[in-house]
């Protein structure tokens, strides 16, 4: 399969097909769906982090005019095979199964857990009534901090449980202890990493509709993984696949947590079946803070051993990971963290122990970056520590440890969660670092810093390298079908959550079928359109769906040309597809005035009773592919950041931000830039702003966007992007994913820069995010030491 890196449309900054409807306000998001007779839901949620439910009294709520039902778990059970959402990814490391229940049964284990639902004429009435559902709680002690939750005598997150250890696993390779015992230097640090929520600007939501005529239940849901939702609904509702369809409308951002199947999706489905009316639920922002999954806390204790030349000999340590109250996804998040700690560096020996602690808080699942930013932060902070202790430049320490380009592909003796080898497939890590440093003016920085300090200004520069496994397999399905209209229709199990999936797939398909992206339609995330489908996560669609689209389009192209050759009575190699027509080229590059339309070929291949199909090929003009791609394609890069710190207020201003990155062959530079920029914004939030705070009793303290800070246009610097394109050898497009790349190095680079700015105070930051009060306190501690 020859890949045109820069073709008719591949590699070009094609403007997005998605835009016009969105710009005109004509898109259809979940809350824009309105069906005749539709009712609306409001959930009654636990106000307690941990409590037993003694009873539920819905009398007053049901008395409100316009209320159709108030449902608790017992009311749902006649419609359910099981109350549990069993979604955990497989792993031998689980000590406890902690599946969520469609609605809480006898116990609630986090603030926000849904206990009952009110279905009413509209949401205003439903919310009125929800306040009148009286639930008698017996409050139990809560475990809020994941470290304390694992201590002896900690209150159990689930009543009667034998401790709060959800899972534990070890990972590593090499003779770690020998590496440490023979090391010239050993440094130890403790890190406190926190990431908050996803906070797509569109919250979650779903609409359930049961068509009695066909007995089909349709669930429209703002989900990254509708096929997962279908499987959960099949299991829970006891209906077969033909009786349930899950469809994603336009999605207003996902960023990870929308890949989870939630209790509300199940409850709305049951309510629609039970009441015989369409039912809509739209999450509000407060609910998003207390019911949509988050990423939150990791505590790392890590040691690094080096030789006398600052070359890494070994890494070892432990992670305690806040899992929340239930398994809404699995062990994947800390698995990613532990797996990716060595990053782009040569690490001869490595050992990490990881414990997942249950807490009485919202379940934890990946947010954009999925554990990788924490690992990148830790390794980069350790290397900065080595540089500081040994009196070396931070770049020099990295140069001595980065895996060189000629070592690719580089196999690391680790296994992914699926037991596959970790192989860094391609990339020039030192080259990326050099490019970023040059653009950021690293060499001149010392002079700039000195000049600034002479003016009483504290500026600093920092860097961080990263690798990010992308395109997680095993496949994504794509069907390419030419219709009798002449339009080319593309269907995929991947979902479009704002990343430009439709444009990306249209480019790949158009490259082989006429070169006109406007002749392509793309349907994403509909279980009626593709039987299989994995969905959107892990920067995976360009790699997985892109490859399937490429192969499927190639197969359709071959068939189009064969049939057209038969219809035009000429050799297939003399034909080319331009727009929606197949032309005879009478000389290379010259179009003769003989052609047939794509639609005509599709008509011919649709068959006519009693007539032989042309071309000697099978019927139809379509192909479905699920190209298997088990190994991850590793994207990589370097961020270099310059900051100014106000030592009186602790405020940090980003003065310059450069990111050099490599996501393989670029399908559309506009989309790639957009993904890197957006990821960077998330990373800046993780470094400086986003803090999902809870008190000691598990009560969330930041439940609105005034308390929980997202990066705004004023805080966000202009980011300079540098691209390298090392084609991945793992797929025919040579692409790697890009959606999460910007996030991964951000907090490491920013915090490194803050450290550098505050070097006169001897500050060494070991946490992210860091707030202005934290910085002021560190400066004060530094002053006292001086």
């Amino acid at each position, binding site marked *: 399969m020859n890949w045109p890196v820069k073709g008719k449309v591949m590699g070009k900054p094609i403007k997005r097909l998605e835009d016009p409807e969105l710009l005109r306000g004509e898109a259809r998001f979940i809350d824009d769906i309105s069906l005749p007779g539709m009712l609306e839901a409001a959930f009654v949620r636990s106000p307690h982090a941990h409590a037993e439910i003694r009873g539920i009294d819905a009398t007053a709520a049901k008395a409100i005019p316009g209320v159709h039902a108030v449902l608790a778990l017992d009311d749902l059970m006649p419609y359910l095979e099981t109350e549990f959402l069993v979604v955990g990814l497989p792993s031998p490391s689980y000590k406890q199964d902690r599946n969520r229940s469609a609605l809480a049964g006898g116990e609630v284990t986090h603030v926000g857990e849904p206990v009952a639902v009110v279905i009413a004429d509209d949401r205003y009435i439903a919310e009125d009534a929800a306040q009148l559902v009286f639930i008698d709680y017996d409050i139990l002690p809560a475990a809020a901090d994941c470290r304390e939750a694992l201590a002896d005598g900690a209150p159990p997150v689930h009543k009667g449980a034998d401790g709060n250890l959800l899972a534990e696993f070890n990972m590593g390779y090499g003779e770690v202890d020998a590496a440490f015992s023979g090391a010239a230097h050993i440094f130890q640090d403790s890190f406190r990493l926190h990431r908050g929520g996803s906070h797509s600007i569109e919250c979650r939501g779903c609409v359930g509709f049961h068509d009695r005529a066909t007995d089909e239940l349709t669930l429209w849901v703002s989900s990254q993984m509708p096929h997962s939702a279908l499987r959960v609904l099949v299991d829970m509702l006891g209906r077969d696949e033909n009786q349930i369809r899950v469809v994603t409308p336009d999605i207003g951002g996902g960023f990870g947590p929308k890949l989870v199947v939630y209790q509300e999706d199940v409850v709305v489905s049951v309510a629609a079946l039970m009441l015989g009316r369409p039912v809509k639920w739209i999450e509000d922002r407060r609910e998003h803070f207390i019911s949509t999954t988050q990423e939150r806390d990791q505590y790392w204790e890590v040691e690094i051993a080096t030789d006398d030349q600052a070359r890494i000999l070994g890494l070892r340590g432990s992670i305690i990971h806040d899992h929340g109250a239930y398994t809404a996804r699995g062990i994947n998040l800390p698995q990613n963290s532990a797996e990716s700690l060595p990053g782009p560096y040569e690490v001869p020996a490595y050992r990490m122990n990881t414990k997942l602690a249950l807490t009485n808080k919202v379940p934890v699942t990946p947010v954009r970056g999925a554990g990788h930013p924490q690992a990148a932060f830790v390794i980069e902070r350790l290397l900065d520590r080595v540089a500081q202790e040994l009196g070396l430049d931070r770049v020099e320490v990295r140069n001595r440890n980065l895996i060189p380009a000629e070592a690719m592909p580089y196999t690391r003796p680790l296994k992914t969660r699926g037991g596959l080898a970790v192989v860094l497939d391609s990339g020039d890590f030192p080259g990326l670092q050099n490019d970023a440093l040059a653009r950021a003016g690293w060499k001149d920085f010392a002079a700039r810093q000195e000049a600034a300090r002479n003016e009483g200004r504290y500026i600093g520069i920092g860097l961080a390298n990263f690798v990010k496994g992308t395109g997680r397999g095993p496949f994504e399905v794509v069907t390419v079908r030419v219709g009798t209209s002449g339009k080319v229709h593309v269907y995929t199990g991947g979902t479009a959550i704002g990343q430009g999936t439709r444009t990306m797939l249209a480019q790949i398909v158009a490259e082989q079928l006429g070169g006109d992206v406007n002749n392509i339609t793309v349907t994403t995330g509909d279980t009626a359109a593709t039987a299989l489908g994995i969905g959107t996560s892990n920067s995976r669609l360009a790699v997985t769906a892109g490859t399937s689209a490429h192969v499927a389009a190639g197969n359709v192209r071959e068939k189009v040309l064969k049939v057209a050759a038969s219809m035009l009575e000429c050799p297939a190699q003399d034909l080319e597809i331009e727009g929606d027509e197949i032309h005879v080229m009478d000389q290379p590059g010259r179009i003769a005035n003989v052609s047939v339309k794509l639609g005509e070929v599709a008509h011919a291949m649709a068959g006519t009773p009693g007539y032989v199909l042309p071309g000697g090929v099978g019927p139809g003009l379509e192909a479905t592919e699920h190209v298997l791609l088990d190994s991850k394609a590793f994207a990589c890069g370097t961020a270099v950041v310059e900051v100014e710190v106000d030592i009186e207020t602790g405020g940090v201003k980003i003065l310059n931000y450069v990111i050099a990155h490599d996501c393989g062959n670029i399908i559309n530079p506009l989309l790639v830039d957009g993904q890197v920029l957006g990821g960077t914004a998330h990373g800046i939030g993780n470094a400086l702003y986003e803090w999902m705070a809870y008190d000691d009793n598990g009560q969330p303290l930041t439940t609105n966007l005034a308390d929980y800070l997202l990066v705004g*246009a004023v805080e966000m610097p202009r980011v300079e992007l540098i691209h390298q394109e090392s084609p991945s050898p793992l797929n025919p497009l040579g692409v790697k994913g890009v959606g999460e790349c910007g996030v991964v190095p951000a907090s490491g680079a920013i915090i490194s820069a803050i450290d550098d700015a505050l070097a006169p105070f001897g500050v060494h930051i070991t946490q992210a995010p860091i707030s202005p009060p934290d910085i002021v306190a560190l400066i004060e501690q530094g002053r006292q030491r001086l």
Partner: protein
Amino acid sequence: MSEKRKLSVAVNGTSYDEDVEVRLTLADFLRHQLGLTGTHLGCEHGVCGACTVLVDGLSVRGCLMLAVQADGTEITTVEGIAPSATELHPLQQAFHDNHGLHCGFCTPGMLTTLLELLRDNPSPTETEVREAISGNLCRCTGYQGIVDAALDAAERLKDGGGDSR
């Protein structure tokens, strides 16, 4: 709770006389009573700016204003920005050309906010653009495409508003 009042408004040039519940927000009125679902709700507490509409030309959070408070006003929503069904407004075109949107959920509020800015300040600096949208959260773009689009649109509007690229 079900008290209703008469409301007369012009939305995107069309007059409406509606009975509305007094507690209905302007955003819910536009979305659910008039079916103008282009105005989006992201937080319902006045921070994210997705629901921004222009009321008598001034940007307003549709989630923080009651529909009845809009009596007698002229409202512009995202559906009213484009000059026709086939053309985009120069600001919308600039968003398209500068990759100023990803998921598009915050876009309506960005567009209405920037329309107000560009009317009042036809030659904004980058800093002024960033300050103007400091009350509009976008989780996808990192703002750079939005800021570039606004600056690009300012140039286009100065050149007569047409396709001046």
